[in-house]
Structure formats: structure tokens, C-alpha cells
């Protein structure tokens, strides 16, 4: 049996977990006055922010008439009125300045002939609002932020996997982590911990998410007794490459691409007469599934076509070079000559760790903070996306709230003490690792994970109902039992990715349980959460955020009100 020796200790003022856009933007901000360390299970430039294609939303008005006011309303409506309007106001009002700041940091945005930042239409946005760098906007933002962190000598711990929060008397004092390359437990003590670990799309079979997207931060918070908010809201992006789930940006439709069913009919005209193909993602994904269910998929199969041929070769290669290359590489489809086979793919978690607009983690409806703990980006729920996120609002979210969290941490750490070296906090984690490494059961993490991904895909995705969700709940309970009997083949410590996958699976199971619990309790349809047995939105009973806490018998549900300032809920049509 492998024995885990005593942990290596580290101390920093600020510890950021996750090196995507939110973590790096926060690091950049906080490094102005504090000793900042960033811990990431992948090298920073490998973070999934780099896969964001289409753009970042901001009412610059470079192409047509636009205003922050319109952006706010579009986002509120897009969220199916579940987004907190005070937070949405912050997001959209700070958007133009945020984009200008990124440009000043050197982000190579695509340009208009007059030299200003180029913008294009995007789903659910009523103006031409998506600032972009061809179809790799996230990539250039991620690299730029990382490069400036290097300039500011932010300390990076790459390939460290965060396992557990150190929580003492209510406050958070650091993180227990595993050194993936060398093996071994490390204790990171910090005055402030920011979770910026992204989403957990890997809970589904078909997803646009990276293998690394296993919801580590959400699961750590949940395990530490912190509630998660609105976990039942998962966005399915309408256009993943058939079978693979690889993303084809909404920008393809923003630039004029259209969706066609098996009868070559532009079916979105029936579902969203005015916005058509660039209606919000929840609307388009449901429409695609309806077409497939009613036997109007391509050749009766479970996909439809995305047609961008009429854009012409020049524009496709200039505006959408990466997606042209994806379709060609993976399914041998030349999008200049043929339509691309697509189907919805699990893409984004609207829910997450509840925070205020300054990234402070808050645990209840009174906004009670957890001293020392912050969250930003997809792992957080501010909530600016409510029931459905608009395209391009997530790159905006990570930069706006990453920065705000970093700034708030700088203000707060003056009053936060450096925790003492309580080495025994890692004991439970060490035991768990030793257990995993010496497990002698029959199950494999890969086997259970693949079942989990199928359960979630077929019982808890775009269309849900009581029966499917009950089945999912029972399946998850069985998988949880089987998980206790897993055996890891790799018994070493160096680069033990087998061990990491096993730990990640435990997290995915917990998060799946929170999703199903929230979905069962929400007996209405709103945004991305659609219940066939309750097909209408029910503002009287469910215009509220779900909070799910870890209880002795499984997830416990409570609610908190939605912040409504200016826009009263109305019927949502496009």
C-alpha cells in the first residue's frame, strides 16, 4: 500500500484555483497589491476558456445602434427572468469598458475597415454585439491574460489538482491539493481562496466541454457544506458536431448560417419567427430535438444540418476558419460545399457556487458570506445567466466578475489573517487517496463514468419529466454504491492520471445528484430546464433560485428569491 507522506506547505495571500479567464483576470487584479498564486490542474494556456469561439458581448455600437440598456434587457429575457437583475446590470454596464481594457492589454480582436473592433450578431442579442477574434476569441483572451500574469510574476502551480477546501470555523483558509506530476499532498494556506474551476459538462455523454471540466470547485464547495445554486440549469448548445459534440460556434449562424431539417426546411422560422436561427440556445436546442423526435432529422437520424455554404469560401475562411477545419478534420465535411451535421451538445452550467457581484461566496438568501472564499466564472452563479445564458455573455462574465473578485479580495485581505499551519487538515484527504490507491474492488472509474454520462444524457438533458428524473435518481444511487468499490490500476504516484480520473468521478457523481434533485423539485419549464410534465413557466411558484445543500440523506433543496429591479417577467418569445 502506498503511504502518503506529510504534506508540503505553501503560503500565499491569495490562492486562485483554476487558470481560465476568470482565475487569470482575478490574478491580474489581485497581484496589484498581494502575493498571488494560481493553482491549475492543467497548464494555464490549456484551460477551457481557450475553446470559446464566437465572441464577447459588449454594447460598443461599432456596427449598429446599441446600448447597455438593450444588452441588459436581452440578458434578462434570455435568462427567462431567473437572472438577478442587479447583477445583470453590472455585467452589461461594465461590458464596453471591459472589452476596451482587453484591447488595451493587447487582445488581437478582428477589426472593421476603420480600425475599430469588429462585431457580429449572436443568439438572443437584439443588436450586433459580439466582439471577436475570428472564431477563437477565448483563445486570444486566455493567452493575453496569461501573458500579463507572467509580466506581473504571478506564481503558477501548474498541474496541481485541488481536492478539498480547508474550512475552519466557517471561514475558508486554503486548499488541499495533489501534485499531479510528482505525486504527493500539498497544503496551500491563504487569506483568500478564489474558485475559478469552470463547468462540469463531462457529466454528459455528448459535450463540448474538455475532459478537465469536471466541476472540481463546485464539488469542493458542496463537500464543504456550501450550497450550490440553480444546478438544474444546463445549457445545451444547439450545434455540436454530430456524435462528437465538438462546438460549432453560434457565430456561424450570426454570420448568416441556417439550420435545415431532413426536408431541407429552415425550421427555426416556425419556432422563433423573428430571430429564427439566432434565437437563444435553449429555444434552438429544443427545436432541433422536436424536429428529430417528429422524424424530421436528416435521413430520420438524430441530427440536423447547419448550412453556411451561401457565405462563400472567402468569408468562411476569414470569419470561421477553425470551424471549417473542425468539420473537415473530424467528419470529412467541407463546410464550403456541404452542410455540417449537428446536434445539441452539453455546453454550459448556468448554476454554481452562489456569489454576490464581488465574487464573495454567499450561502443563503440574506447574502451571508463565507469569509475567505470567493468564486468567479462558470463555477460561480452570480446569477447573471439565470435559466439560460446568451452566447458571448460567458467570456464577458469571466472577465467582469474575475476582475471584480480580484479587486474585492484586495480590499478584504487587509482584515483577514494568515491561517496557521494546521497540518492535520489534510489527514482525511490523505486517507481517501490511500483508500483509492489501495482499493481492491471490481469496478473501474471509466466504466462507472460512462454509465453516469449515459444516465444524464438520456434522463436529465433537454427534455425532462418526473419519471425520467426518478429513474436517474435511482441510477445515480446505484452508481454511487458501485463507486465505493472501484479499483485503480495505477498504484504509483507520478502522473497518476488514473487516480485523478477516479477522484473526478466522485465529484461528477455529486454534481449529477444536485442537478437531478434540483430538476425534480422544479415543477415548471424555464430557460434550459424543460419539464414535459410541466411545460409552462410558473412564476407564481418558481420565480426563485434553487439552493441545494449536501445533507446526510443526499441533496437538500431550499430556495432564494430572484432580484427583480426593472423588468417584470413577461412571456418570452423570439
Amino acid at each position: 500500500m502506498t503511504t502518503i507522506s506529510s504534506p508540503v506547505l505553501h503560503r500565499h495571500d491569495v490562492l486562485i484555483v483554476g487558470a481560465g479567464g476568470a482565475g487569470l483576470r482575478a490574478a491580474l487584479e489581485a497581484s496589484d497589491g498581494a502575493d498571488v498564486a494560481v493553482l491549475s490542474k492543467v497548464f494555464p494556456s490549456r484551460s477551457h476558456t481557450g475553446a470559446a469561439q464566437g465572441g464577447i458581448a459588449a454594447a460598443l455600437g461599432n456596427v449598429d445602434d446599441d446600448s447597455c440598456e438593450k444588452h441588459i434587457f436581452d440578458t434578462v429575457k434570455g435568462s427567462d427572468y431567473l437572472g438577478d437583475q442587479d447583477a445583470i446590470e453590472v455585467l452589461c454596464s461594465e461590458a464596453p469598458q471591459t472589452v476596451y481594457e482587453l484591447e488595451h492589454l493587447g487582445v488581437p480582436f478582428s477589426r472593421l475597415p476603420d480600425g475599430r473592433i469588429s462585431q457580429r450578431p449572436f443568439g438572443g442579442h437584439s443588436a450586433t454585439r459580439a466582439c471577436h477574434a475570428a472564431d477563437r476569441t477565448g483563445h486570444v483572451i486566455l493567452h493575453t491574460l496569461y501573458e500579463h500574469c507572467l509580466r506581473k510574476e504571478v506564481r503558477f502551480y501548474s498541474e496541481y489538482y485541488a481536492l478539498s477546501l480547508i474550512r475552519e470555523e466557517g471561514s475558508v483558509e486554503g486548499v488541499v491539493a495533489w501534485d499531479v506530476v510528482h505525486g504527493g499532498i500539498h497544503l496551500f494556506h491563504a487569506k483568500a481562496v478564489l474558485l475559478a474551476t469552470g463547468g462540469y459538462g463531462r457529466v454528459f455523454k455528448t459535450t463540448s466541454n474538455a475532459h478537465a471540466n469536471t466541476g472540481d470547485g463546485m464539488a469542493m464547495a458542496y463537500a464543504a457544506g456550501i450550497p450550490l445554486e440553480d444546478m438544474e440549469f444546463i445549457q445545451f448548445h444547439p450545434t455540436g458536431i454530430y456524435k462528437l459534440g465538438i462546438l460549432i460556434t453560434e457565430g456561424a449562424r450570426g454570420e448568416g448560417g441556417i439550420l435545415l431539417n431532413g426536408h431541407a426546411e429552415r425550421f427555426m422560422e416556425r419556432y422563433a419567427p423573428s430571430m429564427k436561427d439566432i434565437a437563444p440556445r435553449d429555444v434552438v436546442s429544443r427545436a432541433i430535438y422536436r424536429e428529430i423526435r417528429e422524424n424530421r432529422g436528416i435521413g430520420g437520424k438524430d441530427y440536423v444540418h447547419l448550412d453556411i455554404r451561401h457565405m462563400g469560401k472567402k468569408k468562411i475562411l476569414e470569419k470561421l476558419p477553425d470551424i471549417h477545419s473542425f468539420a473537415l478534420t473530424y467528419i470529412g465535411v467541407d463546410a464550403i460545399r456541404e452542410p455540417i451535421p449537428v446536434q445539441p451538445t452539453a455546453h454550459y452550467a448556468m448554476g454554481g457556487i452562489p456569489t454576490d457581484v464581488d465574487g464573495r461566496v454567499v450561502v443563503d438568501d440574506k447574502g451571508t458570506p463565507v469569509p475567505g472564499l470567493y468564486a468567479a466564472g462558470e463555477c460561480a452563479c452570480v446569477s447573471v445567466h439565470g435559466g439560460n445564458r446568451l452566447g458571448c455573455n460567458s467570456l464577458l462574465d469571466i472577465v467582469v466578475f474575475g476582475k471584480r473578485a480580484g479587486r474585492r479580495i484586495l480590499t478584504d485581505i487587509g482584515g483577514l489573517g494568515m491561517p496557521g499551519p494546521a497540518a492535520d487538515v489534510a489527514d482525511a484527504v490523505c486517507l481517501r487517496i490511500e483508500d483509492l490507491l489501495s482499493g481492491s474492488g471490481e469496478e473501474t472509474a471509466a466504466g462507472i463514468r460512462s454509465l453516469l454520462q449515459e444516465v444524464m444524457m438520456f434522463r436529465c438533458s433537454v427534455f425532462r419529466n418526473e419519471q425520467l428524473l426518478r429513474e436517474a435518481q435511482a441510477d445515480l444511487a446505484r452508481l454511487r454504491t458501485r463507486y465505493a468499490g472501484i479499483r485503480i490500476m495505477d498504484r504509483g504516484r507520478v502522473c497518476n492520471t488514473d487516480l485523478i480520473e477516479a477522484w473526478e468521478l466522485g465529484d461528477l457523481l455529486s454534481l449529477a445528484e444536485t442537478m437531478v434533485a434540483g430538476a425534480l423539485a422544479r415543477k415548471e419549464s424555464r430557460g434550459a430546464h424543460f419539464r414535459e410534465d410541466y411545460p409552462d413557466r410558473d412564476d407564481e411558484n418558481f420565480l426563485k433560485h434553487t439552493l441545494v445543500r449536501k445533507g446526510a440523506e443526499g441533496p437538500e433543496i431550499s430556495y432564494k428569491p430572484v432580484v427583480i429591479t426593472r423588468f417584470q417577467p413577461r412571456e418570452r418569445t423570439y
Partner: protein
Amino acid sequence: MERCFKIFRFDPENGSVPLYREYRIDVQPDWRILDCIHEIKWKLDGTLSFRRSCAHGVCGSDAMMINGKNRLACRTLVRDLKKRGVIRIDPLKGFPVIKDLIVDSDAFFERNEAVKPWFVNNDRPPEKERLQSPEERDRIDEPTKCILCGSCTSACPTYWYDKAYLGPAALLKAHRFIFDSRDQAGEERLEILNDLTGPYKCHTIFNCVETCPKEINVTGAIAELKMEILRSRLRKKSKSGR
């Protein structure tokens, strides 16, 4: 169809020597090589270690040598390789192996940092965006595609024998800033490059171009850097001559 994979294995913990291990699995022509090695790891041998994340060629984690050429495992399909025979997978050459297909990339990233890889413009920024024409933006389009996967530097014979050489990836990063119309630290970077560790060490072997998964003309970019160093020296000379 069944294919045989011959994979480089090295476990630093049990004191054994590196070896190749063969695995036979059923694959489909449209499987990514990443799908194949996942199949091996998940069904046959959990000890096989490799890096991966996005699985569609944008994060740069899974560069490895597949049938003798550096490629991304997630961007290479079974049907892209020769139809018969074993598929051989090795770690990136020129980088120390830690375990199996996982290499130590620290030196690679340190070289990247040596060229001051961050945007510099010390003027007070305007209220809105700085203007840049589409043509000026085009000038840096290629280098901004780089995903730091390491394929190019690992394929460079100069890098194999001279570890002081910055290597194609770091030079490409320098190019991205030197030719950005908005950047002001070009001269400073050219000073760093005007050294035997810089672009002069490129012998135009074009391995980097052949291997780049983003199809970037890295050798061309390095040649432009050589020219730019010369131009910069001429600029300085004519200035001091006045």
C-alpha cells in the same frame, strides 16, 4: 477493425527501463488517436499516462509523436494514418520524459517567457479601443493561432542539440508582438533575439512547418524575424549617423 498500437512506456517509479508495449483494440476509421489511447487506458491498462483536455485541437495538451510525426492525438484520425501495420506512439522528442507519453515541458515554457511574451504599450490608452486596420491585424493572425503544444520545438533538430536555442514556438511568440502595430517593445525583443540563441539558429529545415497542427508557417515567421533584426540595426545606425 482491429489495430495494433505500439506505445512507448516508461515508469520512473519502478526502476525499469523504457520499453514499447503493444495493445490490440477494435477501432473505427473516424476515431481520433486520443479515442484509441483512451480505449486502451480505460479498458486495458489504466497505468498508461498521457495529457489531454479539450479533445479537439485547441488546448495543445496531447501533442505526441504518432507514426514518427508530431501530431495532436485529438486531431489525428485513424483514417489519416496508413491503413495497415502498427500505429506507433512516442512522447515528444527533445523533451525529457517523465512518464509514458508525458514529457517535462518546463524548459519549453521558460523559453517562451524569455522573449517577454506580453503586450507592451506605455501610452495612455484612449477612452475606447486603439485603432488597428484589418491589414495590420492580419499581420499577426498566424502567430496568434499558436496553442503552445510544443510540436514545432520538439521537431526542431537545432533544439535537439542546442538547448540554449529559443526554438520555433518562442520565436513565433516574439513575432506575434514584434509585428503587432500596437506594441512598443519590439526593439527590446529584437535585442533579446539578436543572439546565438535567437532566429539565426534556425537552419530552415521546415520541420516546424510540417508538424504544426495549426498550419502556421513558423519557419517563414522566423525568417521575418531575421530580416527585422537587420532592419532594426540599420535603423539604429542611420539614427546615430545623423
